[in-house]
């Protein structure tokens, strides 16, 4: 049983109307792994995460989560089974406080009968002390970095088994990017599997176990991340001169 991957995607195709955005994508996330998907703008990274989460319907392919093939993917059901997506837009509740945003992150757990949201919130505040300082502030008035922390913190409130992160470094200063990546790497230690979509390929490959390069809706290259870091094509297109550090 422990050998089944957390997530296994096979031959996934997703279309927007007549235009197919993902062509036969396959990938795997093993227990306790960080897997990254890198690729240029418009490659289909966000589309991939949306289809896994059930926000978008797939036109073909299989998705198995925790060893079970998912016949019909519904967002609420995936959340109930411990999958959480931090979307590119963050989708925070702007006119609500930081604390309420976090509480709502535990909505499904609460609905399923768990009453540990206060304890989880204390843990989230340990990880992001900045959120504790600002817990009464409206989410809409937070800085970009703080919003990002809140988006990740809110996702952690669900105590996910698989966390889908869509470009957590988007628009952040290098120092905060490093901070966020350190936290993602820490999550792995607590047993959370992470599927990380990133433009910042260097930072992503440094913390990931395995990587996929997505180009125009197809997996162009994949492999263990140290191997990808040495791959000439990856270096040329995504890491620039210097390669691995």
């Amino acid at each position, binding site marked *: 049983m422990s050998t089944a991957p957390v997530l296994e995607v096979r031959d996934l195709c997703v279309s927007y109307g007549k235009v197919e955005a993902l062509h036969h994508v396959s990938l795997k996330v093993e227990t306790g792994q960080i897997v990254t998907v890198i690729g240029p703008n418009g490659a289909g990274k966000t589309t991939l995460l949306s289809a896994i989460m059930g926000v978008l319907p797939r036109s073909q392919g299989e998705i198995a989560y925790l060893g079970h093939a998912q*016949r019909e993917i519904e967002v*609420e059901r995936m*959340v109930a089974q411990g999958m959480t997506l931090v979307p590119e837009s963050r*989708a925070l509740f702007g006119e609500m406080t930081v604390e309420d945003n976090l509480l*709502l992150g535990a909505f499904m757990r*609460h609905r399923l009968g768990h009453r540990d949201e206060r304890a989880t919130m204390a843990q989230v505040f340990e990880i992001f002390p900045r959120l504790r300082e600002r817990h009464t502030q409206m989410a809409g008035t937070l800085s970009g970095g703080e919003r990002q922390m809140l988006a990740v913190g809110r996702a952690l409130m669900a105590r996910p088994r698989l966390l889908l992160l869509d470009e957590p470094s988007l628009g952040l200063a290098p120092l905060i990017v490093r901070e966020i990546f350190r936290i993602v790497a820490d999550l792995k230690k607590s047993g959370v599997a992470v599927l990380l979509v990133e433009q910042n390929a260097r930072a992503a490959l440094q913390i990931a176990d395995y990587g996929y390069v997505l180009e125009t809706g197809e997996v162009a290259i994949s492999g263990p991340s140290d191997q990808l870091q040495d791959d000439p094509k990856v270096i040329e297109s995504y890491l620039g001169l210097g390669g691995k550090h």
Partner: protein
Amino acid sequence: MDFQIALLLGQDGITNGAIYALLALALVLVFAVTRVIFIPQGEYVAFGALTLAALQAGKLPGTLWLLLGMGIAVAAIDLALAVRRGTARRIPAIVGWNIVYPAALTALLWLVKPAELPLPAQVLLALAVVVPLGPMVYRLAYQPLAEASVLVLLIVSVAVHLTLVGLGLLFFGAEGSRTPAFSEGNLEIAGLTISGQTIWVVIASLALIVTLYQLFERTLYGKALRATAINRVGARLMGISTTMAGKLSFLLAAAIGAFSGILIAPITTIYYDTGFLIGLKGFVGAIIGGLASYPVAAAGAVLVGLLESFSSFYASAFKEVIVFTLIIPVLLWRSLTTRHVEEVE
């Protein structure tokens, strides 16, 4: 006009205004959560009042048949879907809410002779019949179109409104009903007589408003409704389903509507189609609040009540015209002051 008359008109205006305020809040809630402009809101007012009147007259209210019928329709659809999707664990809940509950309520109303019960029990029974019609209407008419545009949802609202008014005529006939006051007493303050029912209406409305406020500020489900109104995508990603939020907001709207009807039934005679005008006045209040601000909508609705009451004194033939004309300057003012920011998902 002397001071006495002004006070009387003010009293009238505030009583009606309190009811309009409740309806305005329900309209803002439903629109914020589902983007539905809830024209049938007024039908719940009429259904609440007429159901209570029927119970007091010792008759089984027609709304009970509606509850049974809609329950069967909802159950049929949801059971078919559950079987097709292989979600058998939902079956007990579907049958329980849509078949067992209406049937049990029918049996209860049959057995207990509601006409002989004390008023609070009659009120609870009337609410028990009418309130579940809220989520059922959502399930049948709006849920299949949850992603449709505001305009399509508005057209559906008009259709639902016409259907419910027609059913109201069928169930309750063309005669109006008036129920006895909650308390017979009057209050004498500074030479002015205030009717007991007025005090009931104002206090009950305030209590309901405070309860709603607490619900949205303090409970997780209330917060989930606000979250859906603020960011639908974000709410879904937290596991707050659009369907659940929609049904919950319709449940609240039906409860507010039916309760309002029960409150005013001793003051005005309610006919099967009275709800529409009352609902429209709540709508004017909601528009004053831009269908978004709860306090402004409530204040606007009280203003509508006062305006209506004073214009009925000065120009009673034109009182509706005056009230609805209020919408024009309000819309002008809103279009000049509102920034048009489209939410980007």
